[in-house]
């Protein structure tokens, strides 16, 4: 055991302390990515960051127009710009300088007055308002939906001004467990999983493959240090790296973003250990199936990106077409992450969190055992 610990420490110094690249990807990159993600998405759930650029085209200013613009200006998510000519505004929309354009008819005041007067009778007259948007641009479609729903509140406001209006009282609350949806908290388990996967897909296989290419593993085999002890040392070394990385990440999360203490619970930690075990074995499985480091790099990179983006890390992928959704369901990261988020209080998407991860664990152990000679390049 002492031998293994000493060798693990040697490997740790070699892989993570002497090699800046190793320490960068495992210790610092997760922190940088976490910082970037929370800076960008920190206020999105509350709509704090979003600013939609709205172009309002009027041919003639009118009271109704002024009221409509002031209604829109009341929403801090809008940056209102006024135009006199529709072509000018549409040109800006096409060049992505605006998100939507609202076109108001020059007879808006009279149309509105007539419509309101007739509304009290059995007759009906409507006032058309055109919203131009670019459907291929996400922000334009979203801005259109928001503007549309706000414009529809105008008629409710008009009715309210008539008096005798029955107001609907909405009492809205967010489930106790996730009182305030916080993106920094929501992304925390994703960054934890990404770090675990980096170790499984890159650190472990590269560490073994490089030694194999330098023929160090063959030398080890003729020494009293056995191959099993070597593999165990590689895993222990990477567990130590993960421990340091997660300590940094947990400290950042708890001190900077006030991530709840539940991340220190045994349930959360156990999921991390399970994730580490599974991805360590997947890493070993890759080394056992592929010989060259360059090919390992190709496979690891492909799997890493696929499992990360199709694992519900940053956006919900469970609504996709079955052509690709099957991968989400066979991806162990989807389940481990869902469970980690569930532990933090978020509602889980999936019910059985153990079946797929354990299937991967068993499969990878089986393949590594059968191909063990190839891991160490035993002649």
């Amino acid at each position, binding site marked *: 055991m002492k031998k293994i610990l000493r060798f693990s420490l040697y490997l740790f110094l070699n892989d993570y302390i002497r090699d800046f690249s190793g320490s960068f990807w495992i210790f610092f990159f997760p922190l940088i990515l976490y910082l970037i993600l929370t800076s960008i998405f920190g206020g999105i759930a509350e709509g704090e960051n979003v600013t939609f650029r709205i172009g309002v085209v009027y041919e003639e200013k009118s009271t109704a127009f002024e009221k409509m613009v002031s209604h829109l200006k009341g929403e801090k998510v809008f940056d209102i710009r006024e135009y006199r000519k529709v072509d000018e505004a549409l040109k800006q929309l096409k060049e992505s300088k605006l998100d939507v354009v609202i076109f108001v008819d020059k007879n808006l005041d009279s149309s509105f007055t007539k419509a309101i007067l007739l509304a009290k009778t059995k007759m009906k007259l409507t006032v058309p308002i055109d919203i131009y948007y670019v459907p291929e641009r996400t922000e334009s479609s979203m801005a259109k939906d928001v503007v549309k729903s706000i414009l529809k509140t105008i008629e409710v406001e008009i009715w309210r001004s008539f008096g005798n209006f029955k107001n609907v009282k*909405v009492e809205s609350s967010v489930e106790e467990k996730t009182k305030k949806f916080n993106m920094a908290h929501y992304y925390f388990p994703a960054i934890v999983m990404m770090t675990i996967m980096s170790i499984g897909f890159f650190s472990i296989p590269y560490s073994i493959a490089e030694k194999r290419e330098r023929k160090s593993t063959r030398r080890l085999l003729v020494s009293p240090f056995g191959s099993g002890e070597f593999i165990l040392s590689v895993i222990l070394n990477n567990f130590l790296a993960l421990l340091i990385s997660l300590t940094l990440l947990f400290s950042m999360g708890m001190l900077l973003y006030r991530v709840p203490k539940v991340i220190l619970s045994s349930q959360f930690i156990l999921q991390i250990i399970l994730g580490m075990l599974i991805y360590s074995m997947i890493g070993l499985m890759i080394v056992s199936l592929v010989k060259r480091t360059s090919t390992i790099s190709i496979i690891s990179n492909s799997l890493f990106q696929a499992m990360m983006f199709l694992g519900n890390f940053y956006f919900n992928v469970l609504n996709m077409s079955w052509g690709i959704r099957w991968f989400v369901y066979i991806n162990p990261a989807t389940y481990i992450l869902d469970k980690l988020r569930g532990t933090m209080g978020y509602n889980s998407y999936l019910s059985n969190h153990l079946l797929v991860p354990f299937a991967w664990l068993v499969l990878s152990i089986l393949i590594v055992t059968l191909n063990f000679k190839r891991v160490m390049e035993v002649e």
Partner: protein
Amino acid sequence: MSDFVSLAKCMFKESIRNKGTMFFTLIFPMIFLIIFGSVFSGGSVGDVQIDVGVVCSENIRESLKTLKGPWNLIFYESESDMDENKKDLDALVWISGESVRILKKPRDMSNMGYLSSFEMSLKILLEKKLNGVKDIVVVRERKIHAGGMDIKPVDYLLAGVIAISILSSGMFGVITLFSHYRELGVLRRFKVSPVRKISFVLGLSFSKFILSLLAAFIMIGVSIFIFHGKYSMNLFLFIVTIISSTLGMMALGIILSLSFRSPTAANNVASIILTIMLFFSGVYFPITFLPPKLRILSFFMPARYVADAVRYTLGLQSMSILSFWLINTVFLITGSILLWVASEISLKPES
């Protein structure tokens, strides 16, 4: 001329024989293309469905069914019925006369946004029903396609992915090549050979242009084949964009290679630059969604301009021709100057 041709040929052959280079230039961007194309092919993330449990009177039910949105309204007879199934619901709603109680159970970011939108729509609908509000404002949606073609959101996104791949292959390709040449001592051999610096730079650039073009055309082919993408390409302007942006990013790659002696350090810094560009260039996430202070950062991201130029040349976005040439000229001039400086430094005779 002949040394340029020979060098370009050698460097191109060297690149296509290198499995890693080929993977990261041609296949890796394709993985992103397929992942993001599949994820965002519905305009948003797939076909969103928000399960909302509702307990309300019979006459309200019919009105609620007119609510437009991704809501899957599930009606329950009693609170206890809904409680039994609350685990699978995104929100629980109780409507009784003029009062409404909503309990939101957010699962993710988009989910939360949809639930807020649901709350607003529900309030308007109920107030209109209770007060007999007639429709006065009719909002007419007018679709405008920036490039003049009827395209899908995924086409717009894929053009951005192509831009990112051009940038990353230009930057990483050069870093890998320079570190590789330095490790093998090829640069030293060049120094003692009669090869002109200009031929070396041109040969290197030309081989990269060919690879970038190849990667871009393969990606366009894949997006047409898999996602039925519609492009109206201006081939000349497209090639100009690829050449200028590859040149610009190659120069950035060379600066990093020269600034950091260790290839891994150069690669790491390049990765940070690329990660920042991915998030702040408006390719994957609209710039409108960035916090105001960070929005300024997007103006300094080459990816933002390259993405705009690529979309323009593929007929997906409108842009003034002056802006197009300005972007390309800036990339061409800065790229050429930096490449010349880099060749002067890297092929300078050792004392």
